[in-house]
């Protein structure tokens, strides 16, 4: 096997590992959109706050990793609920553009709040996880861990949606909002639960991303656009589509980044996205009623 192929294979594997985390990101956003019909433009900023939570808990207060992660997930989940109750709920009857913009205002707010509270320096956990050497390839342990945890998180959400009554109601409300009261379901309660779940997923994503990336107030701008593209390509509110799209994009970013910079990986992903709109628009429009 030539050296070129080893690098390519390594990039492909890293792509799969990245795909897991991206799938997790898109799942949270999709869940909120599918149920509440609102896009959280500030979704990536919730992740940023979660990354800071991890940083402080682990680096400053020396909490054990698992405990820090648990607190981080709960904290961002609560932020999701706050976002819903304070910003989204009053706007549920308003024009969709206003809902988008309000969460955009929250984006500004969170970015600057982070700047004020934490400064603009890049911060990291300062833990160096080992790098696995397999057949001449370097696979970062942090990425493997992130991939595994993302998969476990997604399986848990899947089981929650399939097995519990609340989970079933979350899936049902995405299909027929009006008749939920006939089932005895209080939609407002389901919205709050979904927001907590969406926030919690952002929190989990934060725990995993902070293992690999430095955190700074504008780190959300790195993950935000790509998450939105994944959700649109997979079909907003379509969990399966988002899952597949996440891996496709991750491969493009990873393999594209192999030859050029990571930013070029994003550019390729966007070009691919535009091309896909021409080739398979029905994939984009799937499930839109």
């Amino acid at each position, binding site marked *: 096997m030539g050296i070129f192929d080893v690098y390519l294979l390594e990039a492909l594997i890293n792509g799969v590992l990245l795909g897991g985390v991206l799938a997790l990101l898109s799942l949270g956003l999709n869940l909120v*959109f599918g149920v509440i019909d609102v*896009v959280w*433009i500030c979704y990536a900023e919730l992740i940023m706050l979660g990354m800071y939570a991890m940083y402080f808990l682990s680096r400053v207060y020396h909490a054990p990793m698992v405990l820090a992660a648990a607190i981080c997930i709960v904290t961002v989940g609560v932020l999701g609920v706050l976002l819903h109750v304070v*910003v989204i709920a*009053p*706007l549920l009857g*308003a*024009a*969709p*553009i*206003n809902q*988008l*913009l*309000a969460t*955009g*205002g*929250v*984006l*500004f*707010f*969170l*970015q*600057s*709040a*982070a*700047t*004020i509270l934490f400064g*603009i320096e890049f911060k990291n956990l300062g833990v160096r996880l080992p790098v696995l050497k397999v057949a001449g390839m370097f696979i970062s342990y942090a990425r493997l861990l992130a991939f595994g945890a993302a998969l476990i998180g997604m399986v848990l959400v899947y089981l929650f949606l399939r097995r519990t009554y609340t989970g079933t109601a979350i899936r049902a409300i995405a299909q027929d909002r009006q008749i939920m009261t006939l089932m005895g379901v209080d939609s407002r309660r389901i919205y709050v639960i979904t927001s907590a779940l969406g926030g919690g997923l952002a929190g989990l994503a934060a725990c995993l991303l902070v293992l690999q990336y430095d955190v700074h*107030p504008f780190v959300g*701008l790195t993950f*935000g*656009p*790509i998450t*939105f*593209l994944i*959700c*649109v390509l997979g079909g*907003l509110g379509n969990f399966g589509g988002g899952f597949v799209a996440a891996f496709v994009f991750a491969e493009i970013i990873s393999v594209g980044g192999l030859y*050029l*910079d990571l*930013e*070029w990986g*994003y*550019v390729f992903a*966007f070009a691919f*996205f*535009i091309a896909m*709109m*021409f080739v398979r*628009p029905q994939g*984009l*429009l799937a499930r*839109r009623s």
Partner: protein
Amino acid sequence: MSRWPRWIAGAALVALPFVYHAPYPLHIAILILIWSFAYTSWSAMGRFGLTSLGHGGFMGTGAYVTALLWNRGGVSPWLGIPVALLAGALLAVLVAYPCFRYRITGHYFALVTLALGGIVLQVITATRDYTGGSLGYTPERYQGGSSLYALQFSGKTTWYLIALAVWAAGLYVWYRVDGSMLRYALEAISEDEDAAAATGVHVTAEKLKITVVSAAMTALAGALYCQYQMFISPDTVSGISVSLQMVFAAVVGGLYVALGPTVGAVITILMAEVLRISVGTRAVGWDNLVYGALLVVFIVFLPKGILGTVLAHRQR
């Protein structure tokens, strides 16, 4: 309404820098005019339900293409700006055509354009060998002082007049669209796309027209900003924050009235400036924090925008 108040207001605006030329207020006035023009450009399409969250991409294209052509190729902005407008329009067609052709509307369109703005920022950062990346970029000074050829002026009055002219041109375009058949077609489309198509409106073409106009105007705003400030960075002319800023200002001012975006620019820029001066030096970020919070409050309580609300009250 009589045309006289409009002419008097116009004359007063033209006369302003000759009467009162303290540099700082004039600087703010120029910024307000340039951004007003950008916000008006956005609202040209935004008012028809075409919520683009990616206009920062067009602004960045306009600024960087102009600056790069000047620095790398020695191309005068007089040629560079038209090329930049073309680039902005091309980018718009590239992204908007498939969106419109395949009925990607509402949330979907907003997110696609949002990603577009983010990607332009990534491209600028990625091509750091040419653009200076996130550190920013400066057009080279042409033999020091002012030059018409290089579109560089040291005097603020000249810039004020240029910005005023461009801003007025932006309003003119707004009114032209407002009085055209295009407006009726687009309003029909924003009400019900299928019904509009059924009555013979070419939905894709009409939407594309206004998008190209809007994108090219925004690119011009970017080029102008670049020539005036003589410094651009990805964060100030492109990316999600700039895109959102445009939408906010238009919504805050009022989306459906010609001067709405201008009112929005005056309010948001003055607000940001006051906040920056009063707290900015002590703690970075406070200005944007209050800005963001106020925007949320505005959207929740004044969905019609300030000017829109005022006019609606007066009509009663």
